[in-house]
C-alpha cells in the first residue's frame, strides 16, 4: 500500500486566449481545467493504485474555484482532497511550496506526484521546491514510472533499502532511466499516460469523499513566513506579446514557391548559402 500525494493546480484551458485588462489577466468567462501536466500525475497515481493498492490525496493551493478541479480528481478516483487558501500576500512559488510542504510533512507519504510545470505561470518550480523543503530526492519529466523493491524491478544491487522508483525521463529529447529511493517526488511529462475521464458513478461518489479546506495561517510558523518574505518576488505588470509584422504569401508553382522562399531567407541572412554552420 502506497500513500501518494498528487499536487494539483487549476489553470486556464490551453485553448483560451489571454485578455489583459488593466495590467492583469481577465479571468471572466474563462474555462478552467486541471493543469494538463498535473492530470498526467493524477492518472499515474490512479494506475499505481490499480496495480499496487494506494491511498491518493490530491492537494491544491489556490482560490475557491479550485474546488472544481479537486472534485474532478475525486471523481476519477482520488480518495481525499485538500484545498489550501494562501493568505500570505506573497502568492508566489515559495509560499505555495512552503504551504504544501507543511501540509505533507506530517503525512508520511511514499510518493509525491506533480506536473512538470503549470501551463499558466510556467516556472516548473513549486514541486521541486517542495522536494527540497522535505529533503526528498526527485526525478522530473517522467514518461514511465515503476515502483517496487530491487527484486521486483530486477535490479541486482542498490545502495538503498526498501522500495525504489525506476523512472524513464525526458531529457531534452533523450530518455534517461533513473532510480530513486522512496519516499520521492516525481514530476510528469507528456507521454507518461493517457488521462481518463470521470464516469457518472465516479462523479456521484466524489460528492461524498472528504474535501478539506485549510488556511495558510493554520500551516505556517513565523519562521516560515520569514523565509517566504526573504524569497519574495513581485509582478509589476502583465504585458501582451509584441505584435508580429504582417507576412506575405509566396505564390506560383511549387518549384517557384520553394526557390522564392529560399532566395528571401538567404537574402535576409536567415539561412546561409554555404552549408550549415
Amino acid at each position: 500500500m502506497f500513500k501518494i500525494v498528487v499536487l494539483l493546480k487549476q489553470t486556464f484551458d490551453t485553448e483560451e486566449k489571454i485578455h489583459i485588462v488593466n495590467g492583469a489577466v481577465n479571468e471572466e468567462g474563462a474555462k478552467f481545467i486541471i493543469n494538463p501536466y498535473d492530470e498526467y500525475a493524477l492518472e499515474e497515481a490512479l494506475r499505481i493504485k490499480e496495480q499496487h493498492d494506494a491511498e491518493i490525496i490530491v492537494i491544491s493551493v489556490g482560490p475557491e474555484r479550485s474546488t472544481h478541479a479537486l472534485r474532478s480528481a475525486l471523481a476519477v478516483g482520488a480518495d481525499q482532497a485538500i484545498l489550501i487558501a494562501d493568505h500570505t500576500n506573497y502568492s508566489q512559488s515559495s509560499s505555495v511550496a512552503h504551504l504544501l510542504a507543511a501540509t505533507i510533512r506530517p503525512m508520511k507519504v511514499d510518493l509525491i506526484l506533480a506536473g512538470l510545470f503549470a501551463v499558466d505561470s510556467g516556472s516548473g518550480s513549486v514541486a521541486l521546491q517542495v522536494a527540497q523543503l522535505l529533503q526528498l530526492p526527485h526525478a522530473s519529466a517522467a514518461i514511465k514510472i515503476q515502483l517496487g523493491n530491487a527484486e521486483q524491478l530486477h535490479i541486482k544491487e542498490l545502495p538503498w533499502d526498501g522500495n525504489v522508483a525506476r523512472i524513464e525521463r525526458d531529457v531534452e529529447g533523450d530518455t534517461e532511466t533513473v532510480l530513486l529511493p522512496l519516499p520521492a517526488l516525481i514530476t510528469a511529462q507528456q507521454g507518461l499516460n493517457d488521462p481518463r475521464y470521470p464516469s457518472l458513478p465516479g462523479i456521484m461518489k466524489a460528492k461524498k469523499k472528504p474535501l478539506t479546506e485549510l488556511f495558510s495561517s493554520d500551516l505556517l510558523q513565523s519562521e516560515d513566513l520569514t523565509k517566504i518574505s526573504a524569497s519574495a518576488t513581485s509582478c509589476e505588470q502583465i504585458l501582451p506579446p509584441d505584435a508580429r509584422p504582417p507576412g506575405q504569401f509566396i505564390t506560383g508553382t511549387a518549384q517557384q514557391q520553394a526557390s522564392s522562399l529560399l532566395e528571401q531567407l538567404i537574402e535576409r541572412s536567415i539561412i546561409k548559402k554555404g552549408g550549415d554552420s
Partner: protein
Amino acid sequence: MSNHIVIVAERKGTTLRRVTLEAITAATTLLIGHSGTIHAFLSGSDDDNSLIASAKEILQYGVHEVYIAKHAHFEPSQATIILPALTDVIRELQPTYVVIGHTSYGRELSPRLAAALHSGYIADVTSIESSEDKISFIRPIYAGKAFERRQFQGVAPYVVSIRPNNNVPATLVEPVTITNPDEHIHQVKCEGIQLSSIVQHVVKRINEGIDLTEAEIIVAGGRGVRGAEGFAILKQLADELGGAVGASRAACDAGYCDYALQIGQTGKVVTPQLYIACGISGAIQHLAGMSQSRTIVAINKDREAPIFSIADYGIVGDLFEVVPLLTAQLREIRQ
C-alpha cells in the same frame, strides 16, 4: 558594496553550451552601473581532465573566477546530487545573483537551490531590464500568450534562470588574456555528497545533439504530415538546414512522432531564428509555443489556416511537394 554574480556553467560532452555564454551576457547586464565580478561554477566527474580547459575558456569570456566541483557522482549530472557543492560556493561568495540556464538541468537545479537558500527565484527569463535603481525580469506566462515584468523583493542571493536563445551569447571578439589562469581556477571541496539517485542508462533519440529549445532552425510538422514517413521528409530538410524536427500536439496525439518533439503550451516553448511549420493549422495552444520565433514560414494546403496569421512567409501548397523541393534546391545551392 560590490556585487558578485555566480553563473552555473553547463557543458554538452566537453563543450560549453551556448546558454552558458548567454548567462555570462546576462550577468554582465546585471552588473551594469555596479562594480562587481562574475564567478562560474562548473561541475563534472572526478576523473574529467577536460574541466580545466573548459574553465580556461570561460575565463576568456570575461568571467573572473571559476570554481570546479569534481566528484565521482557528478556525471551524468543530477541536480540534487550537485546541489550541496553549489550551495557551499554560494554561501561562501554571497553573490547578489545566481544565473542558470533554463535547460533540462537548470530547471531542476534552480528551484531546489532557491528553496535551499530561501531565495527568490524568477524562472525562464527572456530579457533583463537594467536601470540605475531597478532591475526587472521579463518572462513569458501562458507559454508566451502574455509576458510579465517581475522584480525581486526579498534578500539576496536571487536565483534567475534564463531561457536559451534569448540573450546574446558572450563572444570571443576580444578574448580576455589572463596571465595566470590557474590562479583564477579553484577546486571546490565536495563534502557530504550523497547518491540520492542513480542514472541507469541514457537512450539518445531523434534530433541527436540538437535540443529543440536551443535549436536555431526548427522544421515542425502537424496533422497534415499524415504519419511517421512524412516526418522523415521533414527530417531531411532539418538535416540540410542544420536544425531540429518539432511537432504539433495533433501530430503527437496521432502517434506520428514522439511527445518529446511537441511544441506548444503543453510541450516545449521554442524561439528559433527560423520556424518552418508544415501541415500545422495553428491551434492557439501551438501558437503559444512558437509565435516568438524570429521568422516563421508556414506551408499548408488550407489558405484559411490560422498559422498564416502569424507567418512571415506563407506557402499555400502541398508539403509533400514543397518540402522535398526545398531540401533539393538547398542542396543544389550549397554544392
